[in-house]
């Protein structure tokens, strides 16, 4: 059975198991819902009032000064952010002990270390050079993940495709990099995606 057939069978089994899955909710659930439902017979056109209310609250002639204030605030925030202390993060990517020749490095910032998997945001990407070197500059102090992608025509694939900081294959097991100063020699070893039998 090919891998696509395995995948289709896997999907079909789950769909059959959960296609009609039911579970009795707690007895008090309906009461909580009922209290939040509107009562009384609805009148014609009810529900359009909120649009009128919004229009009265925010008339168009007051919109432009508000936008100008917002733009000014944005400029102030950008100036403040750019003057914060920043650091550099650079390192080398390896495949089977040898420096990776070209590729792409991706940087992600972790916002909540208690929920790292659900709080990651993409920061940027950079090229990995022929000596496996990559570098990210002017980063604020924070926790980060790195992902290295091998080049499609470098002879690395399909065995070696990508790797995360901590030499991991999946980001949920990757190592968080706590950046509080310049970090110059961070090493990522790209693991094997398809192990030899």
């Amino acid at each position, binding site marked *: 059975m090919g891998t696509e057939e395995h995948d289709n069978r896997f999907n079909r089994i789950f769909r059959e198991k959960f296609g009609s899955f039911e579970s009795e909710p707690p007895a008090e659930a309906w009461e909580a819902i009922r209290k939040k439902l509107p009562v009384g017979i609805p009148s014609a056109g009810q529900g359009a009032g909120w649009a009128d209310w919004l229009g009265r609250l925010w008339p168009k002639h007051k919109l432009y000064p508000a936008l100008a204030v917002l733009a000014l605030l944005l400029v102030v925030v950008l100036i403040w952010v750019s003057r914060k202390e920043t650091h550099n993060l650079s390192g080398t990517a390896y495949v089977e002990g040898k420096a990776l020749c070209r590729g*792409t490095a991706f940087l992600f910032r972790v*916002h909540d270390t208690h929920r790292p998997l659900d709080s990651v945001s993409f920061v940027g990407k950079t090229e990995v050079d022929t000596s496996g070197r990559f570098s990210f500059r002017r980063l604020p102090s924070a926790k980060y993940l790195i992902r290295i992608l091998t080049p499609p025509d470098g002879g690395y694939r399909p065995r070696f495709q990508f790797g995360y900081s901590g030499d991991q294959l999946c980001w949920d097991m990757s190592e968080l990099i706590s950046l509080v100063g310049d970090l110059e020699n961070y090493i990522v070893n790209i693991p094997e995606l398809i192990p030899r039998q």
Partner: protein
Amino acid sequence: MDSEKELIDRCLNRDPKAQESLYSKYASRMFGICLRYAGDGMEAQDMLQEGFIRAFRYLKDYRFEGSFEGWLQRVFVNTAINIKRKGLKFQSEDSTDEKARQIDTCEDAISKLSQQELMQMIRELPTGYRMVFNLFVIEGFSHKEIGKLLGISESTSKSQLWCAKRSLRMRILKNGYGDGRTR
């Protein structure tokens, strides 16, 4: 269908008994959907509550085209997405060789597991994996559609699904349900 139409019409007129009848008819099925998307029982109850409130609010938009259960199911799936999307972040991914991502799956072991055991494994998945897994495998959305629903790229959706299946497979193997190979 007429009796259901009559029930819906009475709900539109805010008949409390009709609303309770509608709830009683579909609550178990919709709670099952909420349990698949929620991280725990409390969150599932919140989803159930919000889902039914939305359903009653937008009941006037149901045009009696297709089954009402199907319409209600879409309301609940959208509710789950809206609730979970608020705190959900995905990394962006470049597309990778799809064939290299395919791995053997332990379907025989999975087919022997009960719904409760599988449900527990799904709920233990990280939120991002669980969302994509539910939408692709069980609801049947394509990766392109999932990308639009969750605001992610198609390749991110594919990699999330791959990691979800890998994680499920590891849990099954770890619990000794199979060796991951088909007969």
